[in-house]
């Protein structure tokens, strides 16, 4: 298990997340995919903290902050999505089409 394994894993997570973001029709699904990307980044931090950093605490603390922040973000996102659901009665991303041009 070397650093590169972890980096590849995190990049794969990122790629999976991106794939999800681009293909999921459901807004919640897209949000979940975003979370996957964020966690990929977290994994990266941890891996770097373990393998390379002379300041490993930072690498350990950062993911915690990220989790907190992303939790906030998700909370807001869910609120918005719910309000969206109220307007459109669907969570289909295709329904977001009124604004264009």
């Amino acid at each position: 298990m070397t650093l590169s394994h972890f980096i590849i894993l995190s990049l794969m997570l990122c790629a999976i997340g991106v794939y999800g973001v681009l293909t999921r029709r459901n807004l919640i699904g897209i949000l979940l995919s975003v979370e996957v990307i964020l966690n990929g980044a977290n994994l990266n931090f941890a891996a770097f903290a373990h393998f390379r950093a002379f300041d490993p605490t930072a690498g350990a603390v950062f993911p915690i902050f990220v989790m907190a922040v992303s939790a906030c973000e998700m909370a807001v996102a869910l609120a918005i999505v719910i309000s969206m659901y109220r307007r459109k009665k669907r969570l289909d991303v295709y329904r977001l089409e009124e604004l264009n041009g």
Partner: protein
Amino acid sequence: MTLLLPDLLLLLLAAIVMAVDLIRIRPLSTVSFHLSWAGLLIIFLVLIVLPYDQETIYLGTYKVNGTALLFKQVFVLSAFCTVLLSGSYFTPGGNARGLLRYRSEFCFIILLCTFGMFAAVSATDLLTLFIGMELATIPLYILSGYQKEDSLSVEASTKYIIMGSLSTGFLLFGYSFLYGCAGSLSFEAILAFAQSAPADPLLRLGVLFVMAAIGFKLTIFPFHMWAPDVYDGSPTPVTAFISVSSKAVAIAFLLILVYGPLAPLHKYLQPLLLILAGATMTVGNLGALKQKRLRRFMAYSSIAQAGYIIMAMAGGAEAARSSIIYYLFVYAAANYAIFFIISIAGRDGNEEFKSLQGMGRRNPVLAAVLMLTLFSLGGIPPLAGFMGKFLLFASAAQQGFYSMVIFAALNSTVSLYYYLLLVKEAYILQPATSSRPLVTDRIQRAALLLLTSAIIFLGLMPLFSSNILAVVR
């Protein structure tokens, strides 16, 4: 602790506003509104009198220096204008699109967001920077969906948050690579690493991820796609706030990184920045050509402006910093002036080009202000926008990128075309139906007076720009 005073005052103000909301007596109370703008004004005054030639680092992570203070001025002024601008949207009958509610919360969120920006420009490490940026960004998601009843607003908000989250993901990846290279989150360590190994692929990978992420906030092509929709859908004061504050903090972020820890990579970044700048201003200008809705139009216009701004980053640290900060003030003044006019002319809720028709006769003063503002955005002397753009271009020219300067100036000619289209709407075209006179309230008049004089005098008075130069030196 003096240098921290504005940050603390801002937090205090936010707390007070929130508290007022908790004990508010009537639903339409304007106490928090007045409290907010007055408080922001005081903070601004405090910011002005602070010493600009010092640099203090608090707790090893929170740095305050002249550049940061200047950025804080921009943020405070922007928040101040947004609060004033929001006034009429919270007043019944102020705008036909729909009444905004929960004024104190609105103000609170604005203040909090502004604090996040404060934190971002004071950062000395990636963590503070990240927290500050997120604090500055997440409230904006909420604000853009503030008009819950309006499906456009909600749609805008949804698009914004999803794209924003993706960019946060990229940002974090970027950070993680930077951390991985330098082994530390502090800028000093990253700088040291960048100096020793500027060609490290991991470092570059990180930088590119960060660039992409910040490109989102700065509406750089091709990361700008959210901007027109979000600008168009959000309530007007929020659009104004996003167009100025959010852009300003992104620029601050970029300045901090590019001329801070990533300075050794500047040569490597230069062509990249120029390409992005050229593409961004072109796309922004082209997009604005065929618009009919004012807020969407402003979105494209601000995309183009972002292009000019990052072009300046091809220049040296001093020139870039001073010209960009100066331009931010100018840009903020002009943008807010336009949004004020939009709020006045767009009372019918449409906020389209048509709303401006016949303004030359309906309200000549307002029309004149509009014209001055647009000319300033178009970079016409002797208005501030000209001086600002001149300095931006000079910054790029200093490094010998003359063809880029020509390209940008030609782009600015294209932008003049659509600004003149607005002038044409206001002066030359007459409304099909007879329309009401354009009424303004006291706050709007005062704000417009301030902004217009800023637009005129920032370009003529050397004091201000010279000060900026002195500060960033």
